[in-house]
């Protein structure tokens, strides 16, 4: 009993609560716990999940990125268009990754060096990048010529589709980066107190640029996988992604005020969002009611978490 209490109230409390909730869902919602549904569920959170890994870093350093949705769409377009025109899948992927990196690096440089507010900067790039994707494709979906391209998403080594594998890899990698590397620690330090970090010799500017660059890179990865899944590059894809990703992170305990983040929390945040969607559809809840239910779930999730942390007597 006491051990249970300690577990629920401890650092990993959110995870435990989530597992409890998951248990209830498994028992009450028929056909939730089938292999097919779980794989479908995981695939549905691939884009959010991958982008959340770097958004976590971004928020942890007290920054903000609204341009992720556009970058995902843009990178997907680039991947398809370049592999079509060069008839080389590999070149397409490379070009998309490069595109993502460039967008991210521009964000980073503008924010860190020209010291423009991150909200405005990324709102601006969000528009510019979306516009570029639309211009490049004349607003139309671009079909993939090479069949190998769709196979990226369809291949499933060990029964797990590649996109899901990539997402899991990203979670592992960025969990390691956050907790085990100088880079990750400096990111948290910057979020805790940017002035003090600078005075402690941390190269705040460079780190911020890197964070945004990585963010761009992962957006590109997500964009490539998405375009492979939908077998075309769509300039309108991933609209509103930014809000979903940021919410997943915040739900997972990442502080918007910087300095606090945990990959386990982000994972849970992403899954909560995915499961909510999945279960509502499984239970055949009507579209309009889904809005309401989604809102209520969000509130409940943070409320429970807050009660938990308050019970430990921490000051909020």
């Amino acid at each position, binding site marked *: 009993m006491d051990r249970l209490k300690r577990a629920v109230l401890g650092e990993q409390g959110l995870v435990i609560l989530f597992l409890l909730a998951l248990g209830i869902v498994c028992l009450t919602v028929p056909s939730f716990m089938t292999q097919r549904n779980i794989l479908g569920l995981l695939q549905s959170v691939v884009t959010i999940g991958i982008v959340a890994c770097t958004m976590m870093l971004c928020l942890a350093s007290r920054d903000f990125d609204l341009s992720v949705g556009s970058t995902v769409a843009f990178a997907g377009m680039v991947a398809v268009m370049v592999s079509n025109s060069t008839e080389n899948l590999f070149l397409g992927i490379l070009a998309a990754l490069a595109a993502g990196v460039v967008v991210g690096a521009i964000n980073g440089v503008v924010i860190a060096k020209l010291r423009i507010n991150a909200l405005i900067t990324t709102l601006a790039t969000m528009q510019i990048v979306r516009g570029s994707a639309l211009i490049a494709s004349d607003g139309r979906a671009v079909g993939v010529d090479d069949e190998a391209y769709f196979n990226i998403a369809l291949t499933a080594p060990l029964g797990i589709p590649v996109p899901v594998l990539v997402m899991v890899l990203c979670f592992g990698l960025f969990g390691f980066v956050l907790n085990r590397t*100088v880079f990750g*620690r400096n990111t*948290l330090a910057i979020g805790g107190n940017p*002035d003090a970090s600078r*005075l402690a010799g941390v190269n705040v500017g460079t780190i911020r640029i890197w964070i945004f660059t990585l963010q761009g890179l992962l957006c590109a990865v997500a964009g490539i996988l998405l375009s492979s899944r939908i077998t075309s590059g769509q300039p309108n894809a991933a609209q509103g992604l930014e809000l979903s990703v940021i919410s997943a992170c915040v739900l997972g305990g990442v502080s918007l005020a910087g300095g606090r983040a945990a990959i386990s929390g982000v994972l849970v945040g992403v899954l909560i969002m995915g499961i909510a969607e999945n279960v509502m559809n499984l239970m055949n809840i009507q579209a309009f009611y889904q809005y309401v239910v989604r809102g209520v779930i969000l509130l409940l999730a943070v409320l429970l978490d807050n009660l938990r942390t308050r019970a430990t007597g921490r000051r909020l």
Partner: protein
Amino acid sequence: MAPFLEFTNITKSFPGVRALKELSFSVPSGRVIGLLGENGAGKSTLIKILGGDYTPDTGELRIGGKAHRFSSTRDSIAAGVTVVHQELQLVPELTVAENLMLGRFPSRFGVVRYGELFAKVGAVLREAGIEVDPRAKVADLSLGTRQMVEIAKAAIFDASVIALDEPTSSLSAHESEVLFRLVNRLRAAGKVILYVSHRLDEIFRLCDGCVVLRDGRLVAQHDTLEGLTRETLVREMVGREIQDIWGWRPRTPGAVRLSVSGLEGSRLTAPTGFEVRAGEILGLFGLVGAGRSELARLLYGADPRAAGEVRIDGVPVRIHHPRQAVRAGLVLCPEDRKADGILQGQSVEANIAISSRRHFSPFGILNTRREGEMADRFIQRLGVRTPSREQAIENLSGGNQQKVILSRWLSEQGIKVFIVDEPTRGIDVGAKSEIYEVLYGLAEQGIALIVISSELPEVMGISDRIAVMCGGRIAAEFQRPGFSEEKILAAALPDRTAA
């Protein structure tokens, strides 16, 4: 005399820490009571309970015979309590006057009466002898000036109980006089005053009696300070004897390590130059706003420099960013620990290791074991009071936070020039002598030290040489043993006739 303020059996715990244990004492009206104790003894916790910021786990608080259980600062204010907190509590974007009257603006139908506000605050500041414009924005004031503004909070409202938590920690004796006059006036008006300070001479000068805490318990209560010695108080606080807290010992300085010429910055308008030798401790003294911190920040690359050359061991160094300074072997431990020192939300360990970990993180991958060991070593060496190295730094007492920030720089490797700005701010006497010991140790390794302090006895006690700043330039220099309190103070005071 009937007690006016009474604490009975107050206990307060935090996870892993019992900050106060069954603490009881009482104070009659019209008295100033010193609250003494080591860092982490529980002084600020007690004051926060009085201020309604914390609720005690058990125990009772009475004011004027009436029992109170504050559930917010508002309750405490309503009961006639004013608290000046250890950490500055100012809103940078508001004016001085708004900050002082925050929560109690004069108003009609909800509209602030600015005329009245500025007039009232202006009068209070003038009466207290604090020279600051009530219309000035707090963001534009230096740390010292901000502290003066904070102190004015004690006088602005008609409270019956006033608590001052280390109000002079970065003020020099000259500015502290302002506070002393204020406290004397409040005492004469029959207020109860709790006064926390690690500067014992202030306690003797100002207080009628004192209370000593150790580990959250009351270890002594003196109704009068007559016949009491410094040594007794120190023993009660620290639990051991400290003979000579400065413990200065002669060294032979080596070659010039740091030489600065023609240094200029936005507020350091006259070109400044000086030298520090290897193994030498240069004390930098001055009044609030003299420009010491600015000088240090310019050297460290924290603020943009307008002109000037810096050489270390005769070689010119380019420093535009603190990172370059650290790599060149020049470090600065900043004065404003809340704004420039602590990494909020991060553990004690992370706060210590932030800079030095690069020496033992191959390919940028942490060596958590080594980091932990290093953190533990410094926690041990400076006596940081914390349940573990995992504790978030903002949960430490002020003095313990200061020790953590110092540890950050003490753990650096390859230092040639070490600048500390108010290194013992908020640190108890026992720990102070530890820290001086550490500084001497650095000097003996051939490091050049610049110690900025507003405490003249400290500067005189530990420096080999003293440079006095006034109005943004170095006004005079003194070589040990030729230190004279009068001469140093005279050099620090702006020459009004010349201006």
